[in-house]
């Protein structure tokens, strides 16, 4: 019951946050120079045609009234329509969101095993040779531009070896796994080092605690202490980081989806910003924000379940 009240309270708290997000996005979009209609009707259209269509779409209404119209529709669950495609934004999101969600979850699945393996390995002998090598390789992975890694992977794994598709999403679940392998791998290259570094620190922090020393002195084996005490306690801080990483992955999807022509939200977002497709940017940002909020909530609940000391 307590947990339910906690969830409801948190969801209510997120309403003003989402409102803030929508105001910020709206202000950004209306202040972006460039006319969506010019891009829509193409290079040859006359100024008169543009003016007529702008008027038709209500783009010349006062900004405040545009926002309130938008907000009014939003409350009724209507995200508006794309200026470019004249289809409902919700339809576009329904089409692209699952792809990005699949990619994010897939990336996480690929990321977690190496993170756990590498951080435990390097925390066992801090600053030993393994730790140093993992650190250096990690930094190299972190410092390589994602789009460059993506291009190299596509050429090597896709073209030279012919192992994986270099584009698209596929139609069936096995195909999704196949098509999104390279995008997920490319994402892993820069996320694994970040998470590894954090989990390693958390592990080291825990190992320096009194109870570990005490456990060791009582004659418990080092690996047993590690498994039963150190590791579980280190998961919590990493779990928190996890929520931040999901936000990162959503933002990072912009690049990998462009490089691998994956029809996902990141690509939709960039294209819509470039085309000044206001309502799509609005809707996509809200969905991104909502996703992050839900993940954070989930993390908090999970933390609470793992460690009842955390005040829910």
């Amino acid at each position: 019951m307590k947990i339910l009240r906690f969830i409801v309270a948190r969801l209510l708290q997120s309403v003003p946050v989402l409102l803030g997000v929508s105001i910020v996005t709206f202000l950004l979009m209306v202040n972006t120079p460039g006319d969506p209609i010019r891009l829509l009707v193409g290079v040859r259209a006359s100024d008169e045609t543009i003016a007529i269509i702008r008027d038709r779409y209500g783009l010349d209404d006062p900004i405040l009234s545009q926002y309130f119209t938008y907000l009014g529709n939003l409350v009724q669950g209507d995200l508006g329509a794309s200026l470019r495609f004249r289809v409902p934004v919700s339809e576009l999101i329904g089409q692209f969101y699952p792809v990005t969600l699949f990619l994010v979850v897939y990336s996480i699945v690929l990321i977690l095993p190496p993170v756990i393996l590498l951080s435990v390995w390097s925390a066992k002998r801090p600053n030993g040779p393994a730790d140093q090598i993992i650190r250096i390789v990690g930094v190299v992975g972190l410092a390589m531009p994602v789009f460059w890694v993506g291009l190299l992977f596509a050429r090597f794994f896709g073209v030279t070896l012919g192992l994986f598709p270099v584009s698209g999403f596929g139609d069936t679940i096995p195909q999704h796994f196949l098509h999104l392998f390279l995008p997920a791998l490319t994402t892993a290259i820069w996320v694994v080092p970040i998470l590894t570094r954090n989990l390693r620190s958390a592990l080291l922090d825990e190992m320096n605690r009194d109870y570990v020393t005490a456990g060791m002195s009582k004659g418990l084996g080092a690996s047993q202490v590690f498994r039963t005490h150190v590791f579980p306690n280190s998961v919590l801080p990493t779990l928190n980081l996890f929520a931040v990483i999901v936000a990162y992955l959503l933002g990072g999807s912009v690049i990998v989806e462009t490089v691998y022509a994956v029809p996902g939200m990141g690509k939709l977002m960039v294209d819509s910003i470039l085309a000044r497709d206001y309502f799509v940017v609005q809707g996509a940002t809200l969905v991104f924000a909502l996703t992050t909020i839900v993940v954070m909530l989930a993390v908090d609940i999970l933390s609470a379940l793992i460690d009842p000391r955390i005040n829910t």
Partner: protein
Amino acid sequence: MINAKGLVIVTFTAATLAGGSFAQDIVRIASPNKVTTLDPIASAAAGNIEAFGQLYARLLRKDRDGNLQPALAESWTISDDGLTYTFDLRDAKFSDGTTITAEDVAFSLNRVAKDEASAYPAAYAPVSAFTAVDDDTVTLTLEYPSAPMLSYMEIFNAGIISKDDVEARGEEAFAGDPVTSGPFMVEAWKPNDRLTLKANPNYWRDGYPKVAGADLIEVQDDNTRTSMMLAGEIDASRGVPFAQVDEVDGSDSVTVPLSPSTLIYGVMPNHAKAPFDNLNVRKAAAMALNREATTKAMTLGKAVVANSTLPNALTFHNADIAPPAYDPAAARELLESEGALGAEITLMITPSFEQAATLLKAQWDAAGFKTTVERVDGGLWWDRLTKGDYQVTINWWYNETEDPDLAVRWAVCGSCGNNSYYTNYNNDDVNQMVEDALREQDEAKRGALYKEIQRISTEELAQIPLYYPPFANAYSTRIKGLTLTPSLQWTLEETEIVN
């Protein structure tokens, strides 16, 4: 011997087979240009043009050699005064099986000519009306003669749509999932991703299209398209960067033929703003440029240096003219004499012109300009261009037909609505000749007018022409017969899958 790699491939192939999606009987084309609407009058953007041709048949069509042939119109007559065209329609059906009537034709063509939201009605300015005389006959009456009018019955926005369909479901529903008259119909449209087409069983040309369907996939990034092409995930790639043509062409299963286009790349000075309102400054800017070397650097020798303000693929192209030759010392002197030495100019570009901007800046600065490059995204570029809020920029354009009428209206006419491609170049003599040439029925006299227009506008450097590039599209050897016509139409209906 099956090695590890082979095994992996077998496994994955099996997975793909299990998925059941076969790309074998459809043609997959990747293009950087987006499809944003399926309504032929709603947009003149490149991605839509590429799609319209597949969806809507026109009264006439062009054969492989670029000659006009009957299409939905079986035959036609033109009155002696050139003001009345009578088209006899053939028996043809829409994709939903209903008959294409004269009503539909008149409705479609009046719509593109007269609807206030028609994106590019320039070709139809002389039109008085299209009228359905009976079920099989349509007349077109003009207010004044237009020499290229017949060829305009073939361009991308002259497609025939179903009046019943538009009226029954409304324009918005139509624009997303139309009843079609062309070789293909819509199987599925995923905006911002792909348009999936399937063969229209009711298409008037018997035996066409030869493939079951096609995917028009939007892929922005040049490298991604190339990777997809090399990996065999697509059958055609629109716009291979010249830097990659040889590499892609060298691949076993891919060819990159360089095919003729009506494209022209040029430098666009804003004639309404200092310092480029001054002809001598424009001349200095032209003389400062080694256009041969610039062209070679940008296209790796795969394009022809441009000599006129109009594309060389157009009829009546004037081969006897040229912008001032490369002479940086003379350019500097000219700037000095105009008191414009050290003039600060801002070169506005879109991201695709980075290399060009670097080349131009270096050469202009060497001749005494002080150039700042300002990169903006496409949305901002169009906004500032059309508002005249720039000093100089670079871009390309193409022409729908080989006839130069639309080209001169677009590029060098100050009174045709677009202010000479928004450069504000405005010469009354040129404007008058543009109108005269349209009405002129005598080929030789028409040709002379267009040559004169080119001579004047090149001499006055309406734009500084850079080069005429060919289309460099990549095609898989799996297919045969696919090409992009100079008017940006894929010849998909004649495409065959050979293995």
